């Protein structure tokens, strides 16, 4: 009888437990990594954000003091937040648009595609510090060739990294110069779009823009979403280029009596990750640095969740 063949509840439980253990065993490398390098640091960051802790002496509980200091008295928080959000909105958008544009153009090039692919990809391989220093020298308002050329053409010569109105656009230019990563993934996605769909659209009388809008874009939406989400996360962590550009342009080495201006010029390149470093390692306020890191984490999570939620409707199954 079928009823007699059914395992008894105890045997079923044992089987399920064995399966669970096996699953956990397979997952354990990831679980250990996740626990050690994500969960534990996250828990400890939350813990220290409620502690008075300077990194040297034992931490003591101080309630919400770090949080109120961060939001109400720390002079660089809101400026860092504004700059970071500006970079997320402008830099990410332009990088994705430019990366997609270059990808589209290169997939259409009949001759010399290899050269263009290499030319656009190579800048991405340049180390961020070296690339930023090169840009700072090229865009130096006094001695740089870019402004010299603009002057020769009778065009305005911006202050670039020395002008608070131009420093973030200059950083955006630097980011757009290194779109090799996006170009590659967009090219792969574009080459994957079925040719029959283009042929059908052409037969229906669709022009280039309509083919892009109604054929290309729907097919590559998941890749665009991926580029935007990873771009937002990377930009929330934006540190090296901003601090190197500020240091090179200000010319200040730093030291006693000669402090480096945070976010030179006039705080315009100050970002949230610089704030975490400043609090934790220059002001010895690890507690508030942890609170700031949590804010950064929360904003990144919120952006990612929002983009995935909004983007999921655009992605076809």
């Amino acid at each position: 009888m079928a009823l007699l063949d059914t395992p008894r509840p105890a045997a079923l439980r044992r089987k399920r437990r064995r399966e669970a253990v096996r699953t956990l065993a397979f997952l354990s490398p990831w679980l250990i990594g996740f626990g050690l390098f994500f969960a534990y640091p996250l828990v400890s960051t939350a813990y220290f954000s409620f502690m008075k802790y300077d990194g040297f002496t034992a931490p003591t509980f101080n309630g919400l003091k770090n949080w109120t200091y961060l939001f109400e008295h720390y002079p660089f928080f809101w400026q860092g937040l504004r700059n970071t959000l500006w970079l997320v909105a402008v830099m990410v958008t332009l990088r994705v648009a430019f990366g997609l544009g270059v990808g589209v153009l290169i997939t259409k090039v009949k001759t010399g595609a290899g050269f263009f692919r290499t030319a656009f990809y190579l800048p991405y391989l340049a180390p961020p510090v070296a690339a930023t220093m090169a840009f700072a020298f090229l865009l130096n308002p006094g001695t740089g060739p870019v402004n010299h050329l603009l002057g020769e053409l009778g065009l305005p010569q911006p202050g670039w990294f020395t002008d608070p109105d131009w420093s973030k656009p200059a950083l955006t230019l630097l980011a757009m110069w290194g779109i090799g990563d996006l170009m590659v993934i967009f090219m792969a996605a574009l080459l994957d779009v079925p040719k029959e769909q283009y042929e059908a659209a052409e037969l229906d009388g669709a022009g280039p823009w309509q083919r892009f809008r109604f054929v290309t874009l729907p097919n590559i939406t998941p890749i665009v979403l991926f580029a935007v989400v990873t771009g937002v996360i990377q930009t929330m962590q934006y540190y090296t280029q901003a601090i190197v550009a500020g240091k090179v342009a200000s010319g200040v080495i730093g030291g006693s009596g000669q402090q480096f201006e945070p976010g030179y010029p006039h705080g315009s390149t100050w970002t949230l990750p610089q704030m975490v470093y400043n609090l934790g390692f220059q002001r010895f306020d690890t507690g508030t640095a942890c609170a700031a890191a949590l804010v950064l984490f929360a904003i990144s999570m919120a952006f990612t969740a929002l983009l995935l939620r909004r983007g999921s409707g655009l992605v076809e199954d």
Partner: protein
Amino acid sequence: MHTPRRTRRTLAAATGAAAALALLTACTGTPQGGGDDGSAEGKDVTITFWHGWSQDNETKAIDANIAAFQKLHPNIHVKVVGNIADDKSEQALRAGGADAPDVVSSFTTDNVGKFCSAKVWADLTPFLKKDGIDPARTFPAAMLSYSGYRGNQCSLPLLGDAYGLYYNKTAFAAAGITAPPKTFGEFEADAVKLTTAQGDGYKQLGFMPNYHGYESTPSHFLGQYGAGYFGQDGRSDIASDPRVAAMFAWQKGLADKLGGFEKLEKYRTGFGDEFSAKNPFTTGQVAMAIDGEWRTASLAEDKPAFEWATAPFPVPDDQAATYGRGYQTGTIIGIANGSRKQTAAWQLVKYLTTDTDAVVGFANAIHNVPSTFAALDSPKLDADANFRTFLAIAKNPNSSTTPASVNGGAYQVSLQNLGYEYESGRLTDLKAGLTATAKEIDAAIDQAK
């Protein structure tokens, strides 16, 4: 007995949280050292010394001093590790452990307040007392000030930097100026005379007053006013000290007389690296500069196409009697509080900071100002007239420094930011700006305490 599932979950969560907290608290706190390492009784002891020098002449000089020390103390062996950035040694001191350094030096004096108050570096007062060393009679006042914090002398000066005026003698002669200026009034007049316009820039600028003009910072200018930054109660006094407002007003006035902030700023972007032969004073782009004593060596090496000389930087007209003063800072050295070889470590620190021959030899090798009165007066000191200017500034009782603070150089950053806003015209109400900045500084210090 069956525990309800919910209770079991709560227990598990509580156990997990307790374990996490135990883990978190276990990795914090400064390790305690001290104790007798037996080196005084002749026991062999090896200590580790971390420093930041990296140039050949610097490391050779340090190694020579260490060799001389080991001859005097054959049972104390020193493992020297050079080219260590402050960040790295700070991390090592946070972590502690057997590989952490026993003796540490730092190029910045900004962190002394934290190192002393958090007891990261050991208080050297008992060692100084035991060996009969009177710090006030041994080290210049400003140097002693930047190496301690509120009675805790957790470091000692290991050579210093003094700031003075560099001037282009050839340009002075061409402009009919016969002597370096002593007051700000004279300085302004000379700076204007020495300035030659060219197009929308300058052929030669008398002086670059903008705060990003390398060493022309608010703190260095305030050294000429003798500002103290903090009152007796430890609160910022920049809003109530008239010298601070006077300095900001003087700097802005000078910038206006020389063509204004924007024009000067554009000219500044054409300057080469500060620590290179393209330094604007070396190239003749500016005729006067505020700079440290190290520039004497660079100029001797770079051989600019003009004659140059040094003098103390001018002082405000109403403080003419204090002419000869200047801003001072320098390298500091201390003992890790976690070191278990503090007796041996102190012998090394004492030798490097108080042995006249060691201090003079090191100063001669790296062209810094010696950090003891005895060394400043030593006939063995290799000093020409230009370098002697800085020796006199270092000995001047009116010379001053930026005091140690519990949160590093944060108060200097706040004050500098105010300077940037004011010089650029983004801030017009200086009084309100100073009041807000004082509040910002106090809030940051309250947070750090």
